């Protein structure tokens, strides 16, 4: 039986799951910072080290770094609540992490080929088409003193290959671990089905970068030290497809470090 009413959502409430992370590096105002690699609660996630990468799913076992989720015994899972507070203002994005990779040569300016496996059936419609699935470049070890432009070759949600897009926000010299650069879309595209290449316009000198395929599930605006809350109505009850790997990205208002705490709640049924 699927959840179709508010009473159904309330009846299916699962225990709240807390999270707490201390973002230690210097942030960049308005630039997203992934909490994936940070210790705390949940513990730190890790990255793959191959260009082709790995798909991520919590169906068999939860992935290190993800917020707590187990698939419902029957019916569907939905986000029912997200409460958060940060020590500085910003926006907290709750995302599903579908795939990530690694193994890039950080000093290479050539095209680095990727053959991504089929992404999990967790796009906006629960399919593998990729609608609503986006790419981000996540820094897992601080990079060197350069500000490359990143070009990604990908196949879009309609299956059209040879699409290209670059980072939405400019990179900067020496980005800290956790820096997250969203990749844009070629005009007309609404998602990514697979990834074929990454090209840096210049050597990034040193460090480690990873690509992530993700889908935004919810966003919660935060004022400094003032909690905010999404409930079943304000969160719009987004569906959490089986195998979802929820993780957090924080878009800060200032450059100072920030503690982020909160509670994540699902309803299932």
């Amino acid at each position, binding site marked *: 039986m699927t959840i179709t009413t508010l009473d159904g959502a309330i009846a299916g409430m699962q225990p709240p799951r807390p999270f707490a992370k201390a973002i230690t590096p210097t942030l960049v105002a308005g630039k997203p910072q992934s909490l994936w690699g940070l210790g705390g609660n949940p513990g730190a996630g890790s990255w793959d080290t191959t260009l082709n990468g790995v798909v991520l799913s919590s169906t068999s076992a939860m992935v290190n770094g993800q917020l707590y989720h187990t698939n419902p015994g029957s019916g569907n899972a939905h986000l029912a609540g997200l409460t958060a507070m940060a020590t500085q203002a910003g926006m907290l994005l709750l995302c599903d992490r579908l795939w990530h990779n690694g193994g890039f040569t950080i000093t290479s300016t050539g095209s680095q080929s990727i053959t991504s496996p089929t992404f999990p059936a967790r796009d906006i419609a629960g399919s593998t088409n990729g609608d609503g699935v986006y790419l981000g470049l996540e820094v897992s070890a601080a990079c060197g003193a350069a*500000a490359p432009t990143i070009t990604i070759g990908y196949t879009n949600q309609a299956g059209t290959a040879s699409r290209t897009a670059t980072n939405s926000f400019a990179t900067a010299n020496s980005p800290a671990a956790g820096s997250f650069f969203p990749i844009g879309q070629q005009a007309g595209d609404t998602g990514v089905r697979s990834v074929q290449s990454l090209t840096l316009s210049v050597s990034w000198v040193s460090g480690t970068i990873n690509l992530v395929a993700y889908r935004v599930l919810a966003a919660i605006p935060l004022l400094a030290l003032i909690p905010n809350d999404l409930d079943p109505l304000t969160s719009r009850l987004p569906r959490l497809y089986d195998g979802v790997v929820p993780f957090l990205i924080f878009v800060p208002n200032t450059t100072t470090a920030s503690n982020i705490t909160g509670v994540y709640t699902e309803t299932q049924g």
Partner: protein
Amino acid sequence: MIGIGSTVRVLEPFSESFPGEYTVVAHNDAAGGWTLDLDGVLSDFDETYLEEVAG
């Protein structure tokens, strides 16, 4: 020969996103590339991705 002050075009695969002509504003010695002013945003490019526009 490209240098600070040169006007350049960006070549594929970056030309899709940056189809215009841009000014070289600095050399990034650490990365071995040129810093372009992309309409107010600075980004570094290896010389292989740049084509100088004849003055």
